[in-house]
């Protein structure tokens, strides 16, 4: 199985290399056909489309932001080039750079205006913006050439005034490969992981210290920049800029390509565009039936290949990643320092005073004062609905307080969850909030967000700074995985590992944020005994290293063995606090948990 996987992998790598080589040689091949310039043209245009589709993939696939304005961005990139070279006689290369700038700036403006809008509404804003941009171009008079557009755009030259179509083709192909690499670097970087984290679960991402808005702006800016580039290149290939380029109807190919190839996959946009361009080429003779055939094929593809070509492959036996076997020596060789810095033993890290949270008339949390100390495992128990999770949400800034106060490291707690997270308070949710489509290793790396000290440019171009930081993070993440016995699974997608492993992974990811306080909401639910043992060992180790571990748990057996102190909550109030033994014998606690024994009369 594994060997067949490796063979296939080699075949794929070799196939890709051959495909790239063939693509570079395509102009020579085209020359042997009866219509060289035409074949060069359609492949060149497809290359531009692939760049735009990658941009769309970054935005919709990885960023989860629905954009109906990418055709508009493409149009604007084209006009940037056309206006600068034709009206202002700029150098073509500089004009291309400006196309990138125009795309990025426009995208940033749009998203800054619409940060509050979510999902569908954001999509509608982009649609509106697209219409506005097209209308503005049409009304632009001689500046934009109005309805007629600007004709006569030329490819830039190196030694001559203008590249030959063959040279420009090679240039386009190189750019596409570059854009693919940028996409890959972005996706595999901390920035990319965080973006996907945000898409999959804004809540968890926030808990890991990621600021949603800053990320959305950045991802949209990158996407806009690439769309501007694609538009600039297209205008050079076609020789003109026209408002119709911005029409959503003409942009169908991008959406179709994205879904056919596989959204949220790296190669999906390129393969998808290749498929669509081929289909368009093959059915070009159907004339009046053109859109009918296209629409029909599209629906058919969605039914047969609902995840797209690459997506289906990824989900297949061959395409999904496999367990990597590490031997014990390798596992032992990892060096890991997880001691909590700047903290003394038994220091008060977080405390609340008379904290209350009311939802309408319901007093979910009703005057709770609680103290978490370093090096301590603090259990919180209570029947369902007693207010434990609400309490945690209050402590970590997810709910505004009705009354009372929270102090972290002696200072009043900030209001935003991601700011609290950045002070060293990391929360693991009750329901698994893993980024299921990302690998186990990537999930842990996402947790290292706060440590990443490189910019988005470092990530895109893989600067030494990025490489160094990334190597260090990866090493550390592996060490953490080794600690939880998950090293062999590092390449698997988080969605494919067992339930118990997922819970462990979540804890590991939280530890990766280097918290001072780690809050675990029912981590033991559904774990097998051996997994429980690993979890127990991990938690003890963390406490020993000086961390304050807060444990909300129903598996009291598990908790009682581990906790230094247990707080019992019922109906939003603390009803008991003490060592596990004390609490277990407390009658009030038994009543709260099991109900009273003397109901029979009252029930009658």
């Amino acid at each position, binding site marked *: 199985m594994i060997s067949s996987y490796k063979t296939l992998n080699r075949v794929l790598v070799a196939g890709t290399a051959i495909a790239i080589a063939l693509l570079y040689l395509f102009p020579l091949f085209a020359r042997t056909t009866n219509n060289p310039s035409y074949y060069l043209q359609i492949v060149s245009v497809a290359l531009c489309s692939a760049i735009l589709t990658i941009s769309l993939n970054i935005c919709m696939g990885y960023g989860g932001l629905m954009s109906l304005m990418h055709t508009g961005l493409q149009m604007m990139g084209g006009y940037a080039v056309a206006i600068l070279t034709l009206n202002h006689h700029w150098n073509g290369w500089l004009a291309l750079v400006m196309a990138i700038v125009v795309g990025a700036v426009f995208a940033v403006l749009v998203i800054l205006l619409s940060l509050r809008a979510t999902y*569908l509404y954001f999509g509608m804003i982009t649609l*509106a913006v697209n219409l506005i941009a097209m209308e503005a171009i049409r009304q632009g008079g001689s500046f934009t050439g109005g309805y007629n557009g600007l004709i006569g755009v030329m490819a830039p030259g190196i030694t001559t005034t203008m590249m030959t179509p063959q040279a420009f083709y090679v240039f386009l192909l190189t750019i596409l490969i570059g854009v693919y690499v940028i996409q890959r670097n972005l996706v595999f970087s901390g920035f990319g992981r965080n973006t996907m984290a945000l898409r999959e679960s804004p809540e968890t991402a926030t808990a890991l210290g990621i600021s949603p808005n800053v990320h959305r702006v950045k991802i949209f800016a990158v996407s806009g920049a690439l769309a501007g580039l694609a538009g600039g290149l297209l205008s050079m290939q076609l020789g003109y800029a026209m408002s119709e380029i911005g029409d959503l109807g003409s942009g169908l190919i991008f959406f179709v390509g994205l879904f056919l190839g596989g959204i949220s996959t790296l190669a999906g946009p390129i393969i998808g565009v290749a498929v669509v361009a081929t289909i368009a080429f093959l059915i070009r003779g159907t004339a009046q*039936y053109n*859109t009918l055939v296209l629409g029909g094929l599209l*629906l058919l593809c969605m039914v047969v290949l609902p995840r797209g070509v690459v997506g289906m492959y990824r989900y297949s036996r061959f395409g999904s990643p496999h367990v990597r076997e590490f031997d014990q020596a390798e596992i032992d060789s990892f060096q890991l320092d997880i001691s909590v810095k700047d903290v003394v033993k038994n220091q008060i890290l977080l405390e609340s005073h008379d904290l209350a949270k009311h939802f309408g008339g319901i007093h979910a949390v009703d005057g709770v004062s609680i103290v978490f100390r370093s090096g301590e495992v603090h259990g919180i128990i209570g029947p369902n609905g007693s207010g434990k999770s609400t309490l945690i949400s209050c402590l970590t800034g997810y709910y505004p307080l009705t009354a009372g106060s929270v102090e972290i490291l002696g200072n009043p707690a900030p209001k935003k969850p991601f700011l609290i997270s950045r002070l060293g308070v990391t929360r693991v949710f009750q329901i698994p909030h893993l980024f299921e489509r990302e690998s186990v290793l990537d999930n842990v790396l996402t947790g290292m967000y706060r440590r990443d000290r490189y910019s988005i440019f470092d990530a895109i171009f893989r600067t030494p700074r990025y490489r160094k930081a990334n190597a260090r993070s990866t090493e550390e993440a592996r060490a953490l995985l080794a600690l939880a016995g998950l090293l062999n699974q590092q390449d698997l997608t988080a969605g494919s590992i067992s339930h118990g492993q997922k819970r462990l992974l979540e804890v590991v990811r939280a530890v990766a944020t280097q918290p001072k306080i780690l809050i675990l909401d029912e981590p033991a639910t559904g774990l097998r005994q051996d997994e429980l043992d690993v979890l127990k060992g991990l938690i003890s180790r963390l406490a020993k290293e000086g961390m304050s571990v807060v444990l909300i748990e129903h598996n009291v057996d598990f908790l009682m063995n581990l906790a230094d102190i247990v707080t019992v909550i019922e109906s939003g109030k603390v009803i008991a606090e003490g060592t596990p033994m004390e609490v277990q014998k407390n009658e009030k606690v038994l009543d709260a948990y099991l109900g009273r024994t003397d109901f029979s009369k009252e029930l009658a």
Partner: protein
Amino acid sequence: MDLQIWVEGLYIGSVYALIALSMTVVYQPTRIMNFAQGEGFVLGAAIGYQTIGVWHWPVWQAGAALILLAMAMGYVMERMVMLPVQLSGNRFAWIIATLAAALIFQSLFNLPYANVTFGYFEFFKTRANIFGAHIAMQKILVFTFMVFAAVFYDQLLKRTLWGRSIRAVAHNNDTSIILGIPTKLVIKVAFISGTVLIACAGFLAAPVIIVAPASGLFFTIQGFTAAIIGGVGSPKGAVAGGLMIGILDSVVRSSLGGTWGVFSTVMALALILVVRPNGFFGKRVVGR
């Protein structure tokens, strides 16, 4: 300001409101904004053209054919959209599925009718002259139908069991199932009734608005704008949004000139969403 301008805005606004309303019908249980919805409008116009215009059928007979064919289209559309959406699992799959459906229907209309704009006799030939404004009775009919349809749908949602179950499915699919509500059937019914509604709108409006075989997407976008401004999923919002962009377009156009009309509606859409991210009557939309 000239009364004519307001009347025109009201009329065109009621066309958009009807489209937005039918989108709401589909959106309620599915959370899908159907890019193919406008094709139902074209279907209504095409049936009116063929039956009343060419074959000279009486209106009731044409209406019967209309409802039957619209039901069939709604059923087919449900399959075309929901099947890929359910299989895909990607939250953006609906965009492609509904666009593909729109493309297919548009091509089908274009094959026999490429040269045609679906105009035919107005049901009432007279024109009302109200304070100097000339209004085709047909336009008043469309407006009346819109009011009727909006009230009917609002009441249907509120007062009938099926309407309530549509709202229930929208709120919680699982809970609806354990109450015995056939949720998949509800979705089919929504597609079918939404298509019948919009086809009726096209049927009534075609004599007084130019509908061409490929106009579907244009009307869809207008309906979208109306629905979004009003707040997706709310019948009240659909009506308010439709009338608003209709009147805005008409008034701005007459005072600032042609292109500013379209510009103003799109600007209004963008501005409203920036200020009120969920539209006027909308609730927070949770992504599927």
